[in-house]
């Protein structure tokens, strides 16, 4: 049994009057890929965004309950959400490289957090991050070209490298492959599997095959409730809840 990285208890999220997440309890383990699956609008992305307080940037969103990372309440007043987000990296649905060079994209996080003492160290960080993002070989000769000039799959790996560069402990991925073709998807999935060695990875996905391929634990969300959370193999072969079974066999969705 690996140790628990994120512990959520009684989490409720409201968007204005809409009750988007209803009383979710979940323990996310370290050095594990956890997949959130469920039909559209079930709240899996919303819950993911609670984990790094990205919901703070939306005015109408309100989060209650208790979320602890390494035992520390991230919604505590003393926690700086900006620091938290450096610790809990995020990769988004659509690749969103900044309008900067590949190098500056990756160096962005380390620069604003003052992680490098000099240019040499920054170069090392960038190289390490790009290697982790499996982009170094393709990008090393064009570090000064704009990140937006890369292909979609390369852009998404750049975004992963960018998130990795700040050395987070948790990596949140919100449908990271939905805008990619099958080959790029396979590359990113391979990358996710490698990242598991150092990080706790949480991935939201619409593809049940993807969840089965990359994750060890799977959580099924439905209408804002966490219906079932277990080993991935068990969820896909022998789910306990009838709703989970209906979803994975394609009867609700």
């Amino acid at each position, binding site marked *: 049994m690996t140790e628990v990285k994120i512990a959520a208890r009684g989490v409720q999220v409201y968007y204005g009057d809409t009750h988007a997440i209803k009383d979710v309890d979940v323990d996310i383990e370290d050095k594990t890929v956890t997949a959130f699956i469920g039909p559209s609008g079930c709240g899996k992305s919303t819950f993911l965004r609670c984990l*790094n307080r*990205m919901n703070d*940037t939306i*005015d109408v969103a309100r989060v209650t309950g208790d979320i602890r990372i390494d035992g520390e309440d991230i919604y505590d007043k003393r926690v700086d959400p*900006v*620091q*938290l*987000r*450096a*610790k809990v*990296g*995020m*990769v*988004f649905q*659509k690749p*969103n*490289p*900044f*309008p*900067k060079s590949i190098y500056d994209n990756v160096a*962005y*996080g380390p620069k*604003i*957090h003052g992680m490098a003492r000099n240019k040499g160290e920054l170069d090392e960080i960038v190289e390490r991050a790009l290697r982790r993002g499996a982009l170094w070989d393709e990008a090393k000769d064009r570090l000064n070209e*704009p990140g*937006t000039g890369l292909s979609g799959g390369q852009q998404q790996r750049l*975004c992963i490298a*960018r*998130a990795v560069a*700040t050395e987070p402990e948790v990596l949140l991925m919100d449908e990271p492959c939905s805008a990619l073709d099958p080959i790029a998807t396979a590359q990113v999935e391979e990358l996710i599997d490698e990242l598991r060695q150092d990080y706790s990875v949480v991935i939201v996905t619409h593809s049940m095959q993807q969840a089965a391929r990359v994750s060890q634990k799977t959580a099924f969300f439905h209408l804002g409730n966490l219906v079932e959370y277990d080993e991935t193999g068990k969820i896909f072969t022998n789910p306990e809840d009838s709703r989970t079974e209906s979803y994975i066999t394609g009867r609700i969705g």
Partner: protein
Amino acid sequence: MPTLWLFGLVLFLAAAGFLAARMRVMTAVSGDRRQLHSLPNYYGWNTAMKAATPALGLLVVWLIAQPMVIDSRVATLLPDQAVSADTTLGLVMSDVRRVAEGLDAAVAQGVMSAEQAGSIRAEFTDVRDRLAEAGVALGSNVSSEVLNAAQRYRTLAATGMLWMTIAVLGVACLGLAWSLRETRPEFRARNVVEQGVRAILLFAALVAILTTIGIVLSLIFNTIEFFRLYPASEFFGSLTWSPSFGGGSELGIWPLLWGTLYISLIALLVAVPIGLFAAIYLSEYAGPKVRAFAKPMLEVLAGIPTIVYGLFALLTVGPLLLEVFGRDGLGWMQAGTAVMTAGLVMGVMLIPFVSSLSDDIINSVPQAMRDGSYGLGATQSETIRQVVLPAALPGIVGAILLAASRAIGETMIVVLGAGAAAKLSLNPFEAMTTVTAKIVSQLTGDADFASPEALVAFALGMTLFVITLGLNVFALWIVRRYREQYE
């Protein structure tokens, strides 16, 4: 027949054609519109278009061409001695036209009968007095040559008008008949109307472009005329601007250009930071309620006439600056009118240009960019400085250069706020003037229009045009260059 009537008649024919075509095609399918290729109205529009467009086009061309043809034919009638030394052919021709129009006006008012007007002779009647009765004032007595020419002018114009009416109505009827003949249920009226819409839009675009070209041409001829009278090397080389209407003036552009650039620079130094920061606040920080209130309020600034800004400069800002920097204060300022006064007020005027455009551009930066930056643990201002602004940069540069063009072309604030002295000085508290302000004063002065002192206005205007054109081309270049990098 007056042109307006003719115009109305053509439109009437077109409207009648519309109804006729619609009715014709509906009867052809006995009221069942499903058998038509297009909706019934398209057949109507097709006919209306074909009746009106060629006819109105001919009308316009005729109205432009007729005076030119008549002028050239009447001018041959005038003997050489009628154009004496102190006048030009153009002036005599304008006399001819005035007499001709006067006679027409007299007939129209019933002061003269048509026969009287046709047989009037300069030797027996004082034409000037008779026309004065009809309310047409002439500058000098009418010579018999001019009167002859005027009579010839009248007959030619009358025949021209008659033929024009016949031709325009003929073309309209031809178009009407032809398009009615092709109005059958299977006729693709919808596609033809589409072509027509396209042509109308193209025409509108062409008018805009041709007008610009026309403006440039009208400047060019007078500018060339100026440089024939005054050496270009002096104009672009001299550092003194001292026009004297008696002649012997020095017309160096540099003091004016310097004033223009200096005032514009101060204006931009005020407008760009304030406008940009206001835009950032409005688009990134302000809540929807503040934004809904503050944005229109800022845009009100853009609606204030510049003369009002000028008064503000003259009555409020100038005296205020004088109190601080004037003789009782720091002693740098002699009078309320100064580069600083005009620059500050002009800066206020430009704030909405910068803020409104920048605000739109910042808003169009995708939210995904901001999310990406927040997701990496950046604060709001870091995100704006390092991600949003670079992404919005081309548009912001465009907004700034647009504001710069406005600043360079601004006149009223300068006239009231900066004074009228053409000086080359670095002290922003001294009175200076700009190219535009001098264009006004040179053209509204008492100078003979053919003198270099008046014509210099066109050379100044041309220079200004070239500068703002260069600025706009530069702005386009910047926008294009960075767009490649950022999309």
